């Protein structure tokens, strides 16, 4: 099943396949996936364990390569890029938020936020930086090292870092997986707000229906294929849809 969107795509994948092993042991993590991630939208990728949702994100972000098919971010076709080009792409055009271990332990919160710029040797846009710091509510903890911050605070710093370069797209891999529900809600609200007020494209992998409900759109993956696509999700509808997979999963 192919999902098209009529707005401009910040990133798109076409006929993506990712196959591990061969013969008896062959695993199709992605099996002919085509998807567009619309600009300025917050998209969640959902699916049960092993559905290929993390693989889809890694391939789209240029962290992993596909067995076949193409991926592009903006006009750039990732399949043709070498490691140096991919590094620059990640530095300048993509933001990342991981589940855990997002920050460099020896740097302060502020230094972690500006890390991608510092590595590139660029000065931050002070106005944008101030705005970001206020958006994540970290102004009074900027001088703290990560081990002096709570998990939620660390994740908000990571989110600010992802946005600091004004990337074309942010990929978030289970960003609330290690957080309690309140801290998680703060991070998710921030991601939604960045999409709504700043037109930031966000793609988030999650298995939590509540987290998915913050997105504009949810894509459901199962067995390496897109099986459903839901706009303006609520936690209840997502949960309902997920139950279907579970039931199906039990039957097979």
């Amino acid at each position, binding site marked *: 099943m192919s999902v098209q969107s009529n707005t401009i795509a910040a990133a798109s994948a076409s006929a993506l396949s990712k196959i591990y092993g061969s013969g008896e042991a062959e695993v199709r993590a992605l099996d002919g996936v085509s998807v567009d991630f619309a600009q300025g939208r917050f998209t969640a990728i959902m699916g049960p364990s092993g559905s290929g949702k993390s693989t889809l994100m890694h391939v789209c972000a240029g962290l992993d390569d596909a067995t076949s098919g193409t991926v592009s971010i903006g006009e750039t076709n990732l399949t043709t890029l070498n490691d140096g080009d991919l590094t620059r792409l990640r*530095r300048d055009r993509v933001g990342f938020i991981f589940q855990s271990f997002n*920050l460099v332990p*020896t*740097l302060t919160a502020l230094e972690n936020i500006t890390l991608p710029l510092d*590595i590139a040797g660029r000065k931050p846009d002070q106005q944008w930086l101030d705005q970001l710091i206020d958006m994540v509510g970290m102004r009074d903890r900027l001088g703290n090292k990560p081990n002096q911050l709570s998990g939620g605070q660390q994740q908000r710093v990571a989110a600010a870092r992802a946005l600091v370069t004004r990337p074309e797209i942010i990929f978030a891999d289970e960003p609330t997986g290690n957080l309690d529900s309140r801290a998680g809600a703060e991070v998710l609200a921030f991601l939604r707000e960045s999409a709504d007020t700043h037109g930031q494209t966000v793609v988030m992998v999650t298995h939590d229906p509540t987290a998915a409900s913050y997105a504009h759109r949810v894509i459901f993956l199962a067995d390496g294929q897109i099986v459903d696509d839901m706009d303006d999700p609520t936690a209840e509808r997502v949960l309902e849809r997920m139950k279907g997979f579970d039931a199906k999963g039990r039957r097979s």
Partner: protein
Amino acid sequence: MFRASWRSLVQHKLRLVLSVLAIMLSVGFVVGTLIFTDTLNKTFTDLFGQTTTDVVVTPKTDFEGLGLAGEVPTLDPGLLDEIAQVPGAAKAGGAVFADGVAIIGADDEPLGQPGAPQFGSNWSDDEELTPYRLVDGTGPSTANEVAIDSVSAEDGQLEVGDTIRLVAPTGEVEAELVGVFRFGTSGNLAGATIAAFDTETAQNVLLDGGQGFTEIDVVAAEGVTQQQLADEVTAVADPDVTVQTGEEAADQAASDITEALSFFNVILLVFALIALFVGSFLILNTFSMLISQRTRELALLRAVGATRGQVTRSILAESLAVGAVSSVLGCAMGIGVVYLLRWFFGTFGLDLGSTPLQLEPRTFAIGIFLGVAFTAVAAWFPARRASKIPPVAALRDDATLPAKALTLRALLGGVQMLAGAGVLVAGVASGGSSGASLVGLGVLLLLTGTITFSPVLATPVARGLGYPLPRLFGTVGRLAVDNASRQPRRSAATASALMIGLALVTALTIFASSITASLNAAIDRVIGAEFIVATDAQRPFPRSVANEIEGLPDVSVVSRTTFTEAQLAADSIPAPTGAEEPPTTFVGTVDPSTVADVINLTFSAGDLNDLTDDGVIVDTTTASNSDLEIGDEVEFTFASGSAQFELVGLYEPAGFFTGYAITNQALEDAGVRIGDTFGYVRAADDADLDALKASIEGVLTSYPGVIVQSQAELKEQVQSNVQTLLSVMIALLGLAIVIAILGIVNTLFLSVLERTREIGMLRAVGTSRWQVRWMVVLESVVIAVFGAILGVVLGVIFAGALQRTLADQGIDVLAIPWPVLVLYLVIAMSVGALAAAWPARRAARLDVLTAITSE
């Protein structure tokens, strides 16, 4: 529990590779040195076993000493006939064997290594009575014939039929080379050259025409034991001779030689132990890191009921296994080291023949014990910390070892350093040999104190050193400095390993340049002669040398000196008790009428005019150490007997000219046959020095091995001798430094593994491979320079303290070669960068996805 240890070892084997290598190298050198020593012993025991007759008779000497200045005690020739006639003797032969005959090679230079004996001997065709085995030609039978050892023949490119030159204290001999022989199975005698003449010529050359023998060798008749024969010989011999069975004589000869060579082996062992000690830092770091990576696993073991002791023991068991494996590998490597040592000694002309390697079980027991012990002790510290991991850590996500404050370390290290500094100052203040041992203790305390204290220094020093890096390298530089200082214990242990090596290298370097500077200053201050005539190994040369130089025009004075060794007795020196040997000393000789023209001595009591043939002078330091005063009686016992002297003068120590001195005539009166060891030449006031030197060289062409040097040349030679010794020492410290470098590689490698996810994250947010590489390289450089600075600072302190302590023994100038020390720091910096090459490459190559998703 132990199954868990074993599994963890197998799983982490890559992480242990460098630890294994470090232990292996050190144990390899220990084992290699021991095998080499045993093989050396066996070589000479066999050699003398084959070549010694059943009974050996030698003159009994009052004091044998080092055989300096050519004293050769002999046996009465009549004794040979008496001994040959005892019923148990099949036959007996008289041998003449003494040091002092240089064989001149085809290039007109004396053969053999400087300082190695140059034996002259008589020849016997009876293989039962002589150790020599002809390999070419015949034995010498007339005064114009000579045979030499096969190593000399080869080195000197001398062939049977050549006319060769030989130089003895009694003069030069020309003879036809008629035979080439081996000493038993060996090409020469432990690196010494041997020239054999017919008996009469040997007596002329070596004994100055005496009729005696230096040794009588007796072969037993059928059925007579060595002991029976020895008893019969003792019965006829006069009491002034020593009668030994062949077995005793062979053992003694072998142990004399191996003892002389063992000096080098002891040094090798000391350096191998230093390397092992340095290696233990690597082990300590490795186990600390393995444990911190396994915190959750260990906490889980605790949570399911393992006691603290069990956790500690399981880690110790791992370390024992690592120690055992590395030590066994080290033992195997030791055999390779033996071949290396053989080659090395071979380059000094020591032919060790084909004796099989002596693999004593004791050697391997020592090697394995040392390897295992050092590993276990080094692992014990992290193992104890591991046992403090609370079981609840298993349930936490961010489980880390509890970070212990450095307060205790700071306190312990600080106290040790203060104590060390105190002892050091006390040692310097008291001076002399007791001062030197205090300085040694102070150095040790200061070193261990610094090692203990170094984690406290790690963070501030790394930050200070790293100060320019963020400006030069941006965020990458910043991260490198942070990484170098975030685990102060780990960085400090890594740096300490390098510190030890560099402290020793620095101290040796400064000490060597201080010796050179002190001797140079002493040459300027003390020597009034324009030229010094000597051999490069300070052996005596014929008197005719000085006689001929005296006859040259433009020579104002030639003053001769020599020295020998003697036992010392004086009222103020306590007599030896029991088995204790009386103290020995060098006794120099001077010509009181001319010495003042060539050596500037300052007398604080008496003067050279008081020095008659029954007088002795001594430097003030020796006098005060031995409580000697003017007028005291001093007794010297030479090989030829004792003589009393009255102390008539005290002079200020003058560089290398220190100690007791009597007149040349007095030594000759005491029965010590003597050549000259130094000839100091004072030119006439208006002499052309270059021309004079050329004419002295003209005289010396007939005396190969004797050279003339100006003061400047003497200084150069002093410097080059000291430099050679320094190079050897630094080469030996190379092992410890190589292991310290392995330690840096190890720390970085394990840190990179530990920070896999962090590096993955840095890569994910856009850090390039080169930036990651630089980050690791700079971290390494910071750690290396940290260790190097500590080492250089300690080295300067050590050398300074040692120099001050030994100031009154002639090392009165402290010369610190700053450019060399700066060079050492630059080398350390490069070494740091080099050590990072592999870990940095690994870090840069990490696959981003694998890194960020790895546990």
